[in-house]
């Protein structure tokens, strides 16, 4: 039976509330019948009325209140209605939540999960469409997870809630209505499928045994990368490996490095803006570790450094599309200097 991603997340929250009395959900408009702006907490305030709290519109305080709860033995899961609003809480994240464990010399832990939807392609415009994970990945002490439909989202979110350290759990908005895509017996559709056995695994989709490009991506871009892989195979006879990360920080590039050593070419595809993006960090690390394996320069696919417009045709011109990935892969496969 196939499960939609929204249902998988909802089930994970329900399971956490059932299993751990100290679990709490906080956020704006979480309570039933509304159940959250994207309906991910639907039904939960009815089942757990004391532990699912609809809050005032106070993101900065909510981060801090959640951290205070976590420091004193609760296990809060904070929903920030749109990822764009994390900016209101970044002082709490950078100067409090991510610091405490180390700054207080291991006397405390902060078992806090912040769930938030990010991403565009819904026409929500400049302040409700961004992918801001690059603001989070450089914060020591913070784990940043961005699942996709290719990951077991139920397991991923439950692992984040079970963690004794703060985890940002980014959910691309377009995931919610999609079905979970899980491989079986080493295959998923036309792809060879492989998933690491770590808590936050990297999923690999390989178009063939021998591929000429490694594409690394995460979150909402995984869907586009898979489409690109299908197009490249059918229309260009170019086979690629798609590596879908689930943890962006601290990032484990072991599977990617192995892939680059096989293919000799790297493309990083992210939905956030190009400059200072997560992709820049990945490229820097891969070239350091596997420079001699690369036939040509690594290539990056990302949003233009621009505001995300509301009108759909304008938004499409800013956000990275499938063609951007196929173009980058063809150039990378050729090993040309562009």
């Amino acid at each position, binding site marked *: 039976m196939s499960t939609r991603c929204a249902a998988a997340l909802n089930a994970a929250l329900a399971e956490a509330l059932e299993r751990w009395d100290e679990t709490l959900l906080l956020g704006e408009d979480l309570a039933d019948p509304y159940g959250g702006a994207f309906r991910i907490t639907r039904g939960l305030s009815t089942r757990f009325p004391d532990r699912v709290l609809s809050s005032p519109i106070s993101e900065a*305080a909510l981060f*801090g209140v959640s951290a205070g709860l976590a420091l004193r033995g609760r296990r809060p899961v904070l929903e920030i209605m749109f990822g764009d609003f994390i900016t209101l809480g970044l002082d709490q994240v950078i100067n409090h939540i991510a610091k405490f464990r180390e700054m207080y010399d291991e006397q405390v832990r902060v078992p806090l999960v912040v769930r938030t939807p990010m991403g565009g392609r819904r026409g929500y415009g400049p302040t409700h469409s961004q992918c801001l994970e690059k603001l989070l990945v450089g914060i020591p002490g913070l784990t940043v997870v961005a699942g996709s439909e290719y990951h077991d989202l139920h397991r991923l979110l439950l692992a984040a809630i079970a963690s004794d350290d703060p985890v940002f759990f980014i959910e691309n908005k377009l995931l919610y209505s999609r079905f979970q895509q899980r491989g079986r017996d080493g295959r998923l559709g036309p792809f060879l499928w492989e998933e690491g056995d770590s808590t936050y695994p990297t999923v690999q989709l390989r178009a063939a045994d021998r591929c000429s490009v490694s594409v690394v991506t995460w979150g909402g871009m995984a869907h586009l990368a898979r489409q690109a892989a299908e197009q490249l195979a059918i229309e260009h006879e170019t086979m690629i490996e798609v590596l879908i990360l689930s943890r962006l920080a601290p990032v484990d590039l072991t599977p990617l490095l192995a892939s680059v050593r096989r293919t000799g070419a790297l493309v990083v595809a992210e939905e956030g803006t190009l400059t200072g993006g997560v992709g820049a960090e990945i490229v820097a690390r891969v070239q350091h570790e596997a420079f001699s394996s690369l036939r040509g320069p690594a290539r990056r696919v990302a949003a233009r450094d621009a505001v995300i417009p509301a009108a759909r045709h304008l938004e499409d011109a800013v956000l990275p599309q499938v063609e951007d990935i196929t173009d980058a892969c063809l150039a990378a496969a050729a090993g040309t200097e562009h």
Partner: protein
Amino acid sequence: MDWRERVAAEGSRGDRTGHFEREFYRGIYLIRRLEETLLELFAAGRLSGTTHTCLGQEANAVAVAFHLTDADVVVSNHRCHGHYLARTGDLEGLLAEIRGLERGLCSGKGGSQHLCAPNFYTNGIQGGIVPLATGMALAEKQRGSGAIVTVFIGDGTLGQGVVYESFNIAALWAAPLLVVVEANGWAQSTPTPRAMAGSMRQRLEAFGLPCGMVEGTDALEIHRAAGAAVGQVRETGRPAGLIIRTQRLGPHSKGDDSRSPEELETLRERDPLPRLAASLDPEQRRAIEAECERRLAAALTATEGPL
């Protein structure tokens, strides 16, 4: 043995005359001498980094700590040495932390304004600790521990928006939180009237936090007001405030005091310490002072590490 225990012990021996005042004095005097010593160490180049001393404000810390139980939580700010000492009496751990030693509270990672000990937390971001304290109070309530959380802030910190978001949430969700505003009239170099519109008290009351107020600088008056405020939070299980009009007698940090000598002179007249001292038997007072000096000297010797 912290000073609350001393009061209890001495009281139980039947010699109650002035014992409370003596122990209060001991608490204030020890903090005063530590803070003065820190400034001397800085001046002598024997400490690095920064520090914010609570010279003149010590009675607030001692008064509030007296009414708290060990299970209660204290959350404090950059000016936290007094709060910590009044709460724990742990002179050596504090000094070791400020001196950057492995045996400091946080092994030297936190330093002067980032302290942590059981049921005690401080951080150096103005206002950021108030939502934390609110969350902690909610956690204590959920766990049914009966503990309350006291958060200390300065009047300048009332400029931060997150403070009011926290007052609102604390009131809405009935957090057993006591907000103590140590209103010393200054924030670094800015006098409060240049930074605060309207009424300080109404800022708390607007969110439904009943707010006590201490205008005078009599240590026992501060003690009584703190008792009332702590009692209110404990009995109602809801947040309350206490504004203490106080005076910072030292620089904001190490050598940065932009106030005139005349103003400082006026402030010194409000210092609770000499008044409390005058109310004590001179011999007993000297004995207390000598004991504090011994403790301080011992802590200094014990923490004489590489600087």
